[in-house]
């Protein structure tokens, strides 16, 4: 088999879900014959007639439709054209999907796929990382796969779960990441993964930032440091145990996220480590996030706005000197 991209893994997971579960259907703008803005549903409309449908530009109604169908026992997948446009369906996601099980005892098994994160020239409305916003709401599972393997297995898992899942797939990884084959086994749901073992400091990251963290860790080997990288995989639920175990080994923590820092995933990780593992820390825990402005258009600004391998490496050097 030729190399499988992160994007193709998402397409193949949807294909498998459609094949194996008659309750699955996909609804989203331009996803039918056109195969989606990014081609994540290429050929699926032809292969599964009537189950991969073009939606009008009506995000609120698209999510509402998914909720109603989920209540009836279907397993809808909603593709947002860009994560940024999910704000137009925000009310249905956070007030209806997220609250349904708690209020009524009826589950709401749906997946909202969010093509997330920045790319050069994307600008303020085609670049956002929205995991923290959705993770804020009890009742929503938020997945942020960083690898081709996870993109595949976690999307299948998302479809199988009985709760609404916000699936944050990173556009920057779509074509860049490749794997030779797809796994048959899945890591346990909600479990973080040690992406790289080390003893001097822990970097907690997720989605595209895992790769920036790994590159920074590699860079720091030249300084004689051995950095551990934890890939959260899902940001809600969050695997505090794996994080604490890593910090217990290293004594130092840097959390990296592409979203804004305010009330974000990095803040949550640090709050948990500070409250539950204060004694494990040899230095104040640090975070590195996007700068606190909208995501800028010009690639020169964008490249500084988001954390990169070199800014992660700088933060690590500072942390190691504390």
């Amino acid at each position, binding site marked *: 088999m030729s190399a499988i991209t992160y994007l193709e893994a998402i397409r193949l997971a949807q294909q498998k879900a459609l094949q194996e579960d008659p309750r699955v259907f996909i609804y989203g*703008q331009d996803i039918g014959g056109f195969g989606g803005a990014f081609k994540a549903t290429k050929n699926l409309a032809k292969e599964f007639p009537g189950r991969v449908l073009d939606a009008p*530009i009506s995000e609120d109604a698209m999510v509402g439709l998914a909720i109603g169908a989920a209540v009836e026992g279907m397993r809808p997948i909603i593709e947002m054209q860009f994560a940024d*446009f999910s704000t137009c369906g925000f009310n249905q996601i956070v007030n209806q999907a997220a609250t349904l099980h708690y209020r009524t005892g009826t589950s709401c098994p749906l997946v909202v796929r969010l093509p997330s994160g920045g790319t050069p*020239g994307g600008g*303020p409305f085609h670049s956002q990382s929205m995991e923290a916003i959705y993770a804020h709401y009890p009742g929503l599972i938020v997945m942020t796969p960083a690898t081709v393997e996870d993109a595949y297995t976690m999307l299948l898992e998302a479809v199988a779960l009985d709760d609404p899942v916000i699936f944050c797939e990173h556009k920057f990884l779509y074509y860049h990441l490749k794997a030779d084959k797809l796994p048959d086994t899945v890591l346990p749901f909600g479990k973080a993964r040690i992406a790289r073992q080390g003893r001097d400091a822990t970097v907690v990251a997720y989605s595209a930032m895992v790769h920036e963290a790994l590159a920074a860790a590699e860079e720091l080997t030249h300084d004689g440091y051995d950095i551990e990288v934890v890939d959260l995989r899902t940001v809600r639920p969050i695997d505090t145990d794996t994080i604490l175990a890593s910090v217990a080994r290293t004594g130092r923590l840097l959390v990296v996220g592409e979203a804004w820092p305010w009330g974000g995933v990095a803040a949550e990780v640090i709050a948990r480590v500070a409250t539950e593992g204060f004694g494990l820390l040899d230095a104040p825990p640090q975070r590195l996030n996007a700068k*606190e402005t*909208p995501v800028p258009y010009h690639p020169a600004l964008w490249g500084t706005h988001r954390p990169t391998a070199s800014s992660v490496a700088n933060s690590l050097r500072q942390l190691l000197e504390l």
Partner: protein
Amino acid sequence: MLLICWELPYYKTMTLGKVSAFEGLPATKPSPEVTRENARRAYRIMLEARILEEKLAVLYRSGKIVGGVFLGRGQEALSVSLGIHLRRGDVYAPLIRDQAGRMAFGDTILDTLRTYLGSSLGSMRGRDGNIHRGRPSEGYHAMISHLGAMVSTVCGGLMAKRFRGETGAVGGTCIGEGGTSTGSFHEGMNLAGVEKLPIVVVVANNQFSYSTPNDRQFACSDLLARAEGYGVRGRRAVGNDLMDCLGVIGEAVSAARSGEGPQLVVADLLRLVGHGEHDDATYIPASMKESPLGKDCLDLARTTLLEKGWLTGEEADEWRKIVEKEVEETSSKVLREPVPDPSEEDWNAFSCLDSQQHLLHQGERQ
């Protein structure tokens, strides 16, 4: 600052020699009837938009523009007809395919190129790009991508004028037929109807929303029927016929200006390019391209103007040459301009903390 931005298009039309309607800054724009002057000016702007957009496509293909390029080819007649009937003091919120309308309202070749190329001298300073540009404090709103969002924003501008007792201003905005499916659009239209605001909303029904044909977008046979549901006046224009667009939209703007309330204009046409320059639009059937919808509004306008004796072939060719030269020269100039330097940014999103306000209009001074 304000004056410079606004004087520019009038100044340019005056240099055409034969256009004499604009002696200095006009108090009002031309009357809505299709006059020789506004038809000539509209055609000239369409030509500028077309040639500029062709350059944008070239810059995109050569990797100079990063991200995306979304063009209005085939929609210039409709677009220009709204921009040209608005005037200083009005509120204008153009959308994706409105290069022509933007230029009629006062935007320039220079600032368009600066925005696409991310020049730090442009109005958006590299912070936002391409079609996401404007000067809100001058009534020229900078669209967000989320379709439908600008209708209510324009309503707000008009409410402010009403609160202050200012009369005679009009708001104009455009949207594709796909964008009419958003909750924002419905809410904005309904609100405009309730408040009886002087807004003109132009729907460019180009039959596709990206790849999605109209039968997957809405079930009503005619979008114009929605006007009644919103309690607003509906009008139809022939989207690729400049004379018709100028007349219909001109009347809509006059009606709104004279207190007749919101106006919805629906026009059928085709975009003669992909959704963006990355898209070959193979989903548009050949039969549709060959139908009257697929006729190029720029060619049609030229023919009509020549037939009416409002323009000569030599003039049209001369204009093309002048515009091509201006686009080329401006492009070379902008390519040499400074791009934003991350180390000089204040990385601040708050007005109350802004230390770089003074840079905002720097570009205009140069």
